[in-house]
C-alpha cells in the first residue's frame, strides 16, 4: 500500500490511480466519519465518493502532509452539506444530538446580526482546543470531529459513558466561556 506522500504525488502527477489508492487506504476511515454524521450507508458512500473528486480538484495546488485528515475534513464537510439537505427532508442521523450539544457552547448573543468571519472562528476554536488537557481534548474531538457515539467512545477510550458525558459537558462549558472571553458571537 502506498504511503501518503506517494499518493499525494499521484494527485500532483494527475494519475487517476490516486483516487483508487486513496479509496483503498482511507475509504473506510472516511466512510465512518460520514456514517457517524448521517447514519445512512448510501449517503455516506456518496459522500466518500465525492470526497475523492474534491480531493482531485484540491491537489494540486495543495499538498497535505497528513492525507487522512485532509480527506477526512472533506468528507466531514460534504456530510454536513448532505445533512442539511437531509434535514430539509426531515431525516436525521446523529447530527441533531451533536448540534444540540454544541448549542451549549454558544454564548448568548446581544447582536444576532453580527457575523464573525469563519476564519476567525476557526482560529478561535483551534486556540481553545490547545487550552484543553490532552485527554479532554481527545474526547471532545472524538465526539465533535469524528462524530463518534458515546458508546463507541466508551469502548475505544475504555472509559464509562457517564465519565465521557461529564468530560464533554465540562469542555462545552469551557468553550462557551472561551468564546465569551474572546468576544465571539456566532
Amino acid at each position: 500500500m502506498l504511503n501518503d506522500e506517494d499518493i499525494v504525488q499521484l494527485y500532483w502527477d494527475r494519475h487517476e490511480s490516486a483516487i483508487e489508492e486513496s479509496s483503498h487506504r482511507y475509504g473506510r476511515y472516511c466512510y465512518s466519519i460520514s456514517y457517524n454524521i448521517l447514519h445512512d450507508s448510501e449517503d455516506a458512500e456518496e459522500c466518500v465518493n465525492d470526497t475523492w473528486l474534491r480531493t482531485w480538484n484540491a491537489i494540486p495546488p495543495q499538498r497535505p502532509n497528513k492525507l487522512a485528515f485532509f480527506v477526512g475534513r472533506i468528507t466531514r464537510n460534504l456530510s454536513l452539506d448532505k445533512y442539511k439537505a437531509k434535514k430539509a427532508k426531515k431525516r436525521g442521523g446523529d447530527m441533531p444530538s451533536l448540534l444540540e450539544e454544541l448549542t451549549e457552547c454558544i454564548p448568548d448573543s446581544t447582536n444576532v446580526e453580527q457575523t464573525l468571519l469563519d476564519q476567525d472562528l476557526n482560529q478561535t476554536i483551534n486556540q481553545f482546543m490547545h487550552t484543553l488537557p490532552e485527554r479532554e481534548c481527545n474526547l471532545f474531538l472524538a465526539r465533535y470531529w469524528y462524530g463518534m457515539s458515546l458508546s463507541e467512545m466508551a469502548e475505544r477510550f475504555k472509559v464509562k459513558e457517564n465519565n465521557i458525558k461529564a468530560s464533554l459537558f465540562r469542555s462545552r462549558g469551557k468553550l462557551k466561556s472561551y468564546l465569551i472571553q474572546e468576544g465571539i458571537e456566532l
Partner: protein
Amino acid sequence: MTTSLTREERLFQAIGQVDDVLLERLEQQLQLIEHAPATVDVPDSDVMNTRRRRWHRTGIASALAAVAVAACLLIFSPFWQNQSAMYTASEPVVNSYVSNQKLPGGDVSPSMQMPANGTFFYSHEVKQALQANQGKQVVFLVAIDLFHNRTPVAPDSEQTRAELKRLQQLQYQVGYTRYWTYSDEMQQTAGTMVAGYLTAAQLEQFAASPDYGYSIHFATNGDGSPLSAEQGIFTDPNDPALK
C-alpha cells in the same frame, strides 16, 4: 454557504478545521489504548489477540499474586491527614507520560517505553497537578510501576518489597492498595497495586534507585476512575483489607 448554516453548524464546521497535530494526538492515544503495547505495523488479528491476552493475564496475575505474601504492618499513617489537601486523579484519566531524562530519539511520548534503571516517568496528568498545586501542601495518591532493566517487576516480588522498604525508610508513604480492572470477559476483577501518598517534593525529586525504573501515574481503576484517597496504603500485600 456559510450564511445558510445555523450557529451550531458553523461551530461544527469550525471544529473540523482544528490543527492536524490535535487529530494526530487523538489517533495516537486511541492506538495506544487499543494496541498497548503499540506497534507501528498492525499484526494479524491472531497475533494481536494473543498479545492482548498475554498482557492482560500478566497484569492481572501480577496484581492478584500480590495477595500471596506474608502479613506486615499497616502503614496507612496519619501523615497525609496533617497536610492541607489530598490529590487523587480528580477524574478518569488516560495517562501519558513525561520523563525525567532526555529520551533517545527526541521528545516522543514515553508511554510505550519502559523507564531505564535510575530514571522515572510521571504522567502528564501528575505533572499538571503538580503545576496547578505549586506552593500548596498537597499529597498525591499515585500508582508506581516498577521496572528492572526496562522489564516490569511484579508487585508481589521480593524485589518490589525490598524497594518499597527502601523508599519507606526514606519517609515515602508507599505500599499496596486495592483497585479493580477488567478480566478478559470484561468482568470487574480485584487487584493490588503499588501506590503511595507522595508530596510534590518527593515526586519532583523522586529518590530513584539505580537498580530500578519507575512509572508514576494517578492510581485508577480499570475504567480510569480514581481510587479513593481514604482506602489506605498497606505494607502487606496480603492484608485482609486488600481483599
